[in-house]
């Protein structure tokens, strides 16, 4: 569906977490680590609270990719976060496959509260992946 | 690879240095110094070498002689490390290094040795006078010959070898290869600097200091000439007599001002006086004054009755000629000029 789109850069929705990964994304700005402005962030309390339907909604409505900036082991709500977020991702990817979407349009990585550089690296490489004509 | 010697700064302290260790190497002193340039950036480098105790580097350097001590580096030093005074002390230390007899070092480091030296010479002169029954004519006669002899002796036995030593340390040893022609062509600088101290004009403080110094040097050299070669004390020539009066007056008037400043300490350069500085200015003052008075007494025809004055004059003269000139601060006049000369040679050779 992105094929007919004329805009230059793929649109990515990032789910960040209020206490851990969102500060890292803020810091990326602070450090002027540039990344494409077509990356939009919506903070949630914890990455394991993201409902698959939100992800699907975003992808269906026009986002080229969704990136979950998960808490990883730093999650203030408990160790199980990573595992639970992982489950959400695989469940959603399953649903994406069923809908004929490339499951690689959903990505997840743990972004610690100071992982500004890894965040920028992730969204840049994700952008690159999504810009490939085959996608 | 140079090895650090922390004891060296203690040695330098005996030559009058103090607080140089406080230096935090900001380079302010070098930057404010108007005589410092890209080829010779000082005094910080010398401060640094002194702190580290790199004696070889200091001996090979002419920088201490290139400084004419305006005091700006010391007044503006953020650490009050007194680089100006350090440079002064290095000149004393270098004098001691150049001097093959070792007397310089002894006199600089020990006030006792200096005083003893002065006393011994004074007693020797008195003994000599005694042996002559204080006959004025003989004394005048021998006094005159003493001057000539002393000049010849000091110049050939002490000063010349020391200058050669200095040359070896600062020119030859660091590897400067200069042809004879260079030595010849640069001679002009030697003479100019020796007689004019031109370089001091580059200092940032007032030029009056240079002027005073300049006329003092001229007065001193011409009085030397007048007494030794024109035989001032025995001449009948009105011209020479008046010239001598004038020259000796210049000396004691200017040195009086120098002494006054050292007492009042109103300028940075006169704040810190080493004993060798006192000896230098006071003896120069006494020489000028006594010479003046001796001639005056001759002219008034009262010297015969006042032999003590002549004896005093002779004592001061002997002390000056045998202690201050070969080993004391007087040598700076020579080394400075030669430093400029060697510096020109080094520049020309590179």
């Amino acid at each position, binding site marked *: 569906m992105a094929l007919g789109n004329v805009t230059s850069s793929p649109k990515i929705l990032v789910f960040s977490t209020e206490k851990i990964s969102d500060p890292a994304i803020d810091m990326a700005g602070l450090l002027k680590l540039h990344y494409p402005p077509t990356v939009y962030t919506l903070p949630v309390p914890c990455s394991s609270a993201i409902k698959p339907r939100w992800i699907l909604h975003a992808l269906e409505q026009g986002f080229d990719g969704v990136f979950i900036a998960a808490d990883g082991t730093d999650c203030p709500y408990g160790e199980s976060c990573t595992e639970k977020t992982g489950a959400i991702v695989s469940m959603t990817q399953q649903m994406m496959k069923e809908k004929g979407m490339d499951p690689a349009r959903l990505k997840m990585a743990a972004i610690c509260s100071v992982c500004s550089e890894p965040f920028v690296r992730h969204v840049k490489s994700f952008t690159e992946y999504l810009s490939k004509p085959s996608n | 690879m140079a090895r650090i010697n922390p004891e060296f700064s203690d040695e330098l302290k005996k030559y009058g240095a103090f607080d140089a260790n406080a230096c*935090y190497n*900001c*380079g*302010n002193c*070098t930057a404010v*110094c108007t005589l410092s340039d*890209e080829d010779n950036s000082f005094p910080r*480098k010398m401060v640094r070498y002194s702190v580290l105790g790199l004696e070889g580097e200091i001996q090979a350097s002419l920088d201490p002689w290139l400084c004419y001590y305006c005091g700006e580096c010391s007044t503006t030093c953020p650490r009050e490390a007194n680089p100006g005074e350090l440079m002064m002390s290095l000149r004393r230390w270098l004098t001691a290094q150049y001097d093959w007899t070792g007397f310089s070092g002894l006199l600089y480091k020990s006030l006792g040795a200096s005083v003893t030296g002065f006393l011994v010479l004074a007693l020797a002169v008195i003994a000599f006078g005694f042996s002559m029954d204080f006959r004025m004519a003989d004394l005048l006669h021998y006094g005159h010959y003493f001057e000539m002899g002393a000049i010849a002796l000091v110049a050939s036995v002490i000063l010349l070898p020391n200058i050669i030593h200095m040359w070896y340390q600062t020119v030859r040893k660091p590897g400067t290869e200069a042809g004879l022609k260079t030595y010849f062509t640069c001679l002009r600088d030697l003479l100019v600097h020796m007689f004019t101290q031109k370089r001091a004009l580059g200092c940032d403080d007032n030029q009056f200091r240079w002027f005073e110094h300049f006329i003092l040097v001229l007065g001193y050299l011409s009085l030397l000439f007048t007494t030794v070669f024109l035989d001032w004390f025995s001449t009948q020539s009105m011209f020479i007599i008046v010239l001598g009066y004038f020259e000796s007056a210049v000396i004691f008037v200017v040195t009086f001002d120098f002494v006054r400043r050292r007492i009042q300490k109103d300028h940075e350069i006169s704040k810190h006086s080493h004993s060798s500085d006192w000896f230098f200015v006071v003896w120069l003052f006494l020489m000028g004054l006594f010479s003046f008075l001796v001639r005056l007494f001759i002219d008034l025809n009262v010297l015969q009755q006042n032999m003590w004055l002549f004896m005093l004059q002779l004592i001061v003269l002997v002390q000056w000629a045998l202690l201050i000139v070969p080993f004391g601060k007087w040598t700076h006049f020579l080394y400075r000029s030669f430093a400029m000369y060697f510096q020109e040679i080094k520049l020309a050779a590179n």
Partner: protein
Amino acid sequence: MIMEETKKKILEYDALVVGGGIAGGESALNLANLGYQVLLVEKDLTIGGKMIMLSKVFPTLDCAACITTPKVSEIARHKNITILTGAEVKKINKLGEHRFEVDVLQKPRYVHVADCTGCQLCEDVCPVSVSDQYQYGMVGRKAAYIPFSIASPRAAAIDIENCTLCGACERACPTKCIDFTQTEEEYLVKARSVVVATGFNLFDPLKIPRYGYGRFKNIITSMQMERQLAPTRPFNTILRPGDGKLPDNIAYVLCTGSRDKSVGNPICSQVCCMYSIKQAQLLMGALPMADITIYYLHIRAFGKGFNEFYAQAQDMGVEFIKGKVGKISEKENGNLILRYEDIEAGVVKEAEHDMVVLSVGILPNQGIADVFENEKLELDPFNFVQQSDMLASPAKTSIDGVFVAGTASGPMDIPDSILSGGAASAETTSYLRRGTL
């Protein structure tokens, strides 16, 4: 009550905070949040101290205003805090534990602050133009003026020294808040504790004539550069005050008036290295083509994130030269020649720059000690307020019940000032509690 004292307004507070900068503000706010009644006395027309004047702050590059203004407005609105601006503490007498008697003198502002809407109409009509102290003399301001747009209170004031009393402002004022009949107000404050947060003064570079500040117009102080970079800046961009040229080769001279016994200040000011590095980074953003050179002795990048910030400036291309600038001379075109020893090369050099910023140091703001009458507020050898128990209770002074916050006790950066303000309020709290138990 004695007759002559009846003129004075009598006020009672739990704590008197002297100085409305960031440290004093932090103390006042903490105390007020715990329910204590606080009187904040500020000499200037606005609270926020020096910080509110700054551009951005290191090492996070947050804008100073973004941090100061909300704090300032929280202070201004707090129901437990009373603010007196344009007021000075004249006398403090300690009558006993928890009993301080303080004389405060408030100069007339000639404006009723409560009625002023900050519309600036008075400013428009005022015919007078004098040097603007809030822009460190780089531009003028009117005699009827609002200090600057984010001042608190954002209200006009009349500079009576320079006013021609033409009355134009009064006629223009829509709320009729200008009132030339105002007179000095004297207050007698009964306070149970005192926090001294009187901040610092900047070194005056006129004391180093060989730098030529004042004579050479393109040499400015770091505070003037700070203003040029701030959102409430005097020019529309960075300009040389000598001729209005956009500078493209700017030099910073560190340790101007710090670590320098020859000007009587042997200590390090702790912030100059970092604020200069910060300004250099900001200048590289504002003037992308400009070269920035910082002449330093030692870079004191010691705090959290500071060394990384220093490395970042190096990566951005800021040039760092180790060597103290010895003297500065001016060329015909207004450019400046800096003479220094390049320590790494051991050689004296000269460099030309078209603008020079003197990174001036922090000096004590000395008056406060004289205000204490019957007990002595001890000062340290550098004339900052002496911390009597520096290790265990850094906010304590020689007088029980008087606490010190921020740079009044020595140079420090903003995070340290804020922590110190927090410490002062903590100590004040326990002191006040000792009074009630």
